[in-house]
């Protein structure tokens, strides 16, 4: 990234100079393996001598506690939820992501506003409203979309951290159990992601492959992006 490009008005009150860093986004459904890949990528990039900063949903200092409490209490109505998450995202963008890019870091973002928007739309938000809401968002250098189908997701989660209320869309569910609700909700989310995919230039990566194969594929895409940057040559001791 050199000259920052925003999807809308950006931050009009703030002069943002060129950003020498790179913004790499990992998108994909719940349980698709994003955090594992983020960790692998981070180690690899640091090994190559790049400074890396990572960020993910709900990590804003402002909203973290409030959002956790609201999720625990299951008291978020639709528009309220959209806006609360947008606050979290805006705070991290202005106070974390942009400063890191200014300092020349590679920022690995575990999800971006695309996920949040996909969820909002599945919950009935007006798509035009949601797009304009994120008019302050910075266009990433690269968005890698880890794609898996819903049967794959459910088996990963059941053998992993389990199914939870929000990831199963229980707040909007007509079903009486997490499983049916999960299948229904996550299928809709995947459809919603697929629609965003071409609009926002996602690069699709098949998440059903073994972890190290996914990692290799992600690495190749990031290497292409970093082509203009000199890798550190290993010196002999």
């Amino acid at each position, binding site marked *: 990234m050199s000259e920052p490009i925003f999807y809308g008005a950006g931050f009009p009150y703030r002069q943002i100079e060129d950003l020498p860093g790179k913004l790499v986004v990992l998108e994909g459904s719940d349980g698709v393996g994003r955090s594992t890949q983020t960790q692998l990528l981070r180690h690899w990039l640091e090994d190559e001598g790049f400074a890396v900063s990572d960020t993910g949903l709900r990590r804003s200092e402002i909203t973290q506690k*409030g959002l956790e409490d609201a999720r625990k209490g299951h*008291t978020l109505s639709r528009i309220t939820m959209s806006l*609360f998450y947008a606050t979290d995202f805006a705070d991290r963008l202005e106070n974390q992501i942009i400063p890191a890019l200014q300092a020349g870091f590679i920022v690995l973002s575990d999800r971006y506003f695309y996920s949040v928007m996909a969820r909002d739309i599945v919950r009935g938000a007006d798509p035009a409203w949601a797009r304009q809401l994120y008019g302050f968002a910075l266009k990433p250098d690269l968005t890698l979309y880890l794609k898996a189908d819903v049967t794959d997701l459910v088996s990963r989660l059941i053998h992993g951290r389990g199914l939870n209320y929000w990831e199963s869309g229980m707040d909007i569910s007509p079903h009486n159990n997490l499983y049916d609700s999960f299948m229904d909700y996550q299928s809709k989310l995947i459809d919603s992601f697929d629609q965003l995919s071409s609009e926002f230039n996602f690069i699709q990566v098949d998440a059903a492959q073994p972890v190290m194969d996914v990692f290799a594929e992600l690495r190749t895409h990031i290497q292409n992006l970093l082509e203009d940057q000199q890798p550190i040559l290993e010196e002999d001791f």
Partner: protein
Amino acid sequence: MLEKNNTPGKLIIVEGIDGSGKSTQIDLLYKWLQTQGQSVYFSEWNSSGLVKSTTKLAKKRKLFTPTTFSLLQCTDFADRWENRILPMLKAGVIVLADRYAFTAFGRDVARGVDRKWVRNLYSFALQPDIAIYFRVPLDIAIQRITSARAKLKYYEAGMDLNLSDSRIQSFKLFQERILNEYDRMVDEFNLTIIDGSLTVQAQQRLVREIVKQELKGWKGLPIPEGSPHVRLQAEISAETGGR
């Protein structure tokens, strides 16, 4: 442009800069409507319990930027909108709001966010049946604020904008910008202007006149015999406190 209110309820809101006297007026209106036997619900700006601790934390640590300030206040509004204001309107209640989306259109734009962007944020809200703008010269507002209250707070005075090191001076410059934004909104959102430098009683007479006109021939949610306002009042007492 906000969508027309097609609910059975009535939405009445007041706007104006700090010290314009709007809260006094809506409080008097609220009590008057109750004695008239109407079902009334009152909602105050920035009073959602869901967002309260988050706002408090961010203000205390001065973490807000114009964008996050705007988004969090809209979150607060959305919570009140989805869980209180809209349900009340659908039930046929008169909803009184001390400040509305126009406060955000004034303050957030004064802080530098994009005018169109913030209008889109609040586009889920309905156009009030009555929107009264208490217009008052800046000097009078400042006099009222500084004599009635101890100290201007950081964000209230717009200190985050670095307009001046003096809180009073910063407040003045900030409110001036907000006044300009309000003036733009008079036609855009059909605001009814009341001169906020008139006496309290004279203003209230005008307010009641406007409200009477609007409610002529209208029937709201009936109040069950024997228990006037009990539930609505309980909610108000739980919600007041933030500004």
